[in-house]
């Protein structure tokens, strides 16, 4: 391809997305799945959008890609801990091999 830096970022993003979704399948319970997928898929999609910016430069699509990077980097952690809190409150039990669960202890203590 005629733009080596942009191609490099796109390939990096594709590989990170793949690792994130493998984590979504292999990890044992909801919370670990949320962690792996949030980290890897967030950075992977940001890398793909950065590759688009390298390809297009300062055109309409490139600027929108930069805005989208900021938006995704701000909202993905928020949705992840909204989901984790909702799963804990709705009674999804952690995995049997988990070591400590302070949060469940505190919720039960409150009620």
């Amino acid at each position, binding site marked *: 391809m005629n733009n080596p830096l942009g191609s490099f970022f796109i390939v990096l993003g594709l590989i990170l997305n793949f*690792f994130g979704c493998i984590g979504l399948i292999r990890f044992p319970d909801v*919370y670990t799945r949320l*962690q*792996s997928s*949030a980290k890897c898929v967030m950075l992977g999609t940001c890398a793909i959008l950065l590759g688009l910016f390298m390809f297009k430069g300062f055109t309409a699509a490139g600027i*929108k890609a*930069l805005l989208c990077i900021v938006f995704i980097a701000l909202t993905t*952690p928020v949705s992840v801990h909204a989901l984790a809190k909702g799963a804990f409150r709705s009674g999804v039990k952690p995995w049997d091999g988990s070591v400590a669960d302070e*949060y*469940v202890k505190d919720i039960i203590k409150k009620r």
Partner: protein
Amino acid sequence: MISYILTYFIWFLVWILLTWPPTPKNLITGLVAAYLVSLFKMDIFRSPENKSRPGAEKNKGPASYIKKIPWFLYYVVVLLYECVKANIDVAFRVMHPDVPVRPGTVKVRTGLKSDAGLTFLANSVTLTSGAATVDVNREKGCLYVHLLYIKDGLDASAVNIPAINKFEKILENIFE
């Protein structure tokens, strides 16, 4: 007043970036639209709790904002570095034959008090180093953090993680 002007310019900047080739038609529409939005969202940069807190007044003025910019750039660099490190860690754990995880939720004490500081701390903890914030307890001043791998003999009610301490030290300079 300064909050109002800042809000107006930020919405105007977002409008320009969204409709990128800045022709006069787009710019005039943007002036009107940013004015209408900032009528509703005037108080986005000041929260009522922070005003009553002692020590909040001395951070006023444009000089303090300018002083925060290098700290913010340093924060972004540290965040990117930790994020890449966490991604390599997760990729290693995913491809290992028996998935080496020992998950669990622990408590992490924090000294931050302001809204924006706590939000940024929780978000950056979620993006880095095998941890995700679940909830914030504001009275006790602690975060409930879900860790991917807990080492042996770690006290679960008060955990010290070097990455989180680094972020806390930077965010204290920005938001407190």
